[in-house]
């Protein structure tokens, strides 16, 4: 396993698993929920990172894919199919949908793909609204459809602790999948596609095939994330999947750092935890309820926008760029003057 070649990495990984195991026993209810929420969001960010980070296809359709994942899971689970199969069905459906969306998108480049995905987003949203309010028992669906319990056969995921371990497992699998994928020819073709697609074509990389692969893999993972999210929440409703959700996932990939798996981790945690951090900040300074109500809401939105622009202008390589610089600084500690070329991880 070349992934964990050096002794350090082996020790580090063991330590991490250890922390992962004991954490739920120590953490409070809300803390666990925040971890679960972050892990769900990271899986979503990893999915988008394959499409936008690696293959450079900017997409605002991510919320629609999450929505499709959610509603397909609801539809399939109604037939009494067990939880793991439902998630697999949603993933497969996501892949097929990715193919359907990707094929026409092959004709387009750059900004026109963004527009196509915005169109796709609103069309899917419309279909979801029709689906939710058309069923004959929709009279009972005022607050969205109820999802059955997520049971894995041997254990039912009802408590936050169980969800924590399950999501941890899923996250590790997804990360391993992405890490291995990143080392294959496919990812190298994607990066060539991102950097300069004309030269990539000239180098004999069949653009269409790799662009399509990017769409298929990314949307399959996205639908899986959508399905897990819906099971974790226990209910699915159309109002959750907005364009802002798609923008926040895009921001995660951008702020995290293009085409870096660990960058998506950083970006996802940053965006997912920011609202909690700001709320905590308000409470920390004992803001009066009135200022909380009037300033809490806009501050989250404004900080999000400012951070996004800040990274784009000052640190285009994103958090991972900063991270690498810090790490390289420490590694070359005594001799670490400003280094011209930063070693790409």
């Amino acid at each position, binding site marked *: 396993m070349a992934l964990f070649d050096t002794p*350090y*990495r082996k*020790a*580090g*990984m063991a*330590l*991490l698993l250890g*922390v992962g195991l004991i*954490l739920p026993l120590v*953490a409070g*209810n*809300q*803390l666990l*929920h*925040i971890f679960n*929420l*972050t892990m*769900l969001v990271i899986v979503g960010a990893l999915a988008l990172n394959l499409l936008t980070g690696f293959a450079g296809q900017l997409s605002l359709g991510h919320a629609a894919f999450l929505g499709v994942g959610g509603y397909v899971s609801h539809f399939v689970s109604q037939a009494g199919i067990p939880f793991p199969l439902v998630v697999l069905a949603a993933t497969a459906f996501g892949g097929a949908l990715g193919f359907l969306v990707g094929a026409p998108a092959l004709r387009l480049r750059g900004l026109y793909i963004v527009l196509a995905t915005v169109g796709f987003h609103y069309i899917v949203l*419309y279909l979801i*609204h029709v689906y939710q*309010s058309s069923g004959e028992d929709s*009279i*009972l*669906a*005022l*607050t*969205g459809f*109820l999802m059955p319990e997520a049971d894995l056969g041997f254990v039912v995921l*009802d408590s*936050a602790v169980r969800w924590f371990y399950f999501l941890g497992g899923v996250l590790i699998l997804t990360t391993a999948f992405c890490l291995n994928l990143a080392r294959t020819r496919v990812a190298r073709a994607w990066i060539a596609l991102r950097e300069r697609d004309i030269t990539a074509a000239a180098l004999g990389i069949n653009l269409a095939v790799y662009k399509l692969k990017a769409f298929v893999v990314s949307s399959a993972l996205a639908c899986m994330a959508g399905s897990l*999210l819906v099971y974790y*929440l*226990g*209910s699915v*409703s*159309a*109002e*959750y999947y*907005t364009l*802002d959700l798609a923008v926040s996932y895009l921001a995660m990939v951008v702020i995290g750092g293009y085409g870096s798996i*660990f960058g998506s981790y*950083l970006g996802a*945690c940053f965006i997912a*935890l920011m*609202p*909690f*951090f700001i*709320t*905590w900040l308000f*409470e920390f300074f004992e803001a009066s*309820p*009135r200022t*909380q*109500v*009037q300033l*809490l*809401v806009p501050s989250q*939105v404004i900080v999000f926008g400012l951070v996004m622009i800040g990274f784009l202008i000052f640190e285009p390589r994103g958090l991972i760029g900063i991270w690498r610089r810090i*790490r390289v600084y420490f*590694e070359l500690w005594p001799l670490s003057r400003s280094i011209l070329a930063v070693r790409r991880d």
Partner: protein
Amino acid sequence: MRYIQSFLILTVAVFLTAWGSDRNQARAADQYILGLSGVMSGPAGSSYLPMVEAIRVYFEKVNDQGGINGRKVKLIIRDSANDPLRAVADLKSFADTDGLNAVIFPSTSATVGAYTKESRRISMPTIYVNACYPPATPPKPNPEFFCPGISTLVDAFTIVDLLFELMKGKKITLGFVTSDVPGARIAAQKLMAPYAAKKGAKVVGVAVAPVPMMDLVPITRGFKDKGVNAIISYTYTHHMLATAEAVGKLNYDVTYLMAANIPGALTQMAQLKNPNIHAMDHFSLVSEDKPVHKDIVAAAKKYGYDFPVSDIRFGWRAAMVTEAALKACGWPCSREKLVGVLNTLKVNDPNMVDLNGGPVTFTKTNHTSPSKAYRVYSWSTAKNALVTSVDWFVKQEMDWAPRKK
């Protein structure tokens, strides 16, 4: 070396942030603590922010007047931004706050499903501040979930009844305007239209406007061309108000009845000054100057309520119910004890009766009020003011036995 260190530091960072927001709950022992998780941002925010502010203003007034049972009330305010994940996160952080008595939950239908699934597990007493979703709708009426109003579907039927009251004797050709939101769309298409048809109205159609549609003139003009003489709209605020505008713009002679329980409706009627526009309301008008109304106006001015005063009433009622419950619960007030108190609570002091047109109690089965008194307000050009065209019209709660599939 590269991945693992960064992984560790990341986990520590996440741990710190979350731990921080988990740890700083108020430790003050001698205060009632209420969690307030509301939808304050996003498109839906504009309807629920006035409710959150109403509750805030109410409890600042209560604290100034010596608190409840001599103890202050501390509000922890969270914005769930219409995201079920954050609503559940807010609930869990409230649950982890020791000494927190109850949660007031002014939020959208999108978040109710996820919230109630979690609140049932940790049995956190919750006062829901919005139109009550009928108990038969999943989630089943949780033992700890209370809605001081009546189920939305009774509202839907009542608005049709009130229209018949308003147009006594006239032949009604009726059109509905609703939004492409599951709740509103189902109520209009599957409940109100058949009910109105059964009562003898000629229902021309149900126009479903997409949420971001601002301009309802084409839809209204469609009804005008079809000779519709009555329109009912019970849905998103800006659609109801946009239809009222359209009726004015097309100077269309129609009886337009909308629901005023969601903020903004009454203020707009006062601006439009159009006798054709009527509003069904759960509460009395603030301009009636009864003691409760004086209270409201004074508090709104003193504690800086930025919205039109008539929007405060929905949140005000929920706050009054919460205060009554805490008062009855005494000190110390555990969550189980509070749920018990709420089950048998009857708020029938004069202020509530003046505001709500009747007492607030909770039925055993679905935790909504057994009956509700409604009013219809219209604009009288003579008095140049809003006037009550149908006074306290009482409607009983229905027993929503869930239909067997």
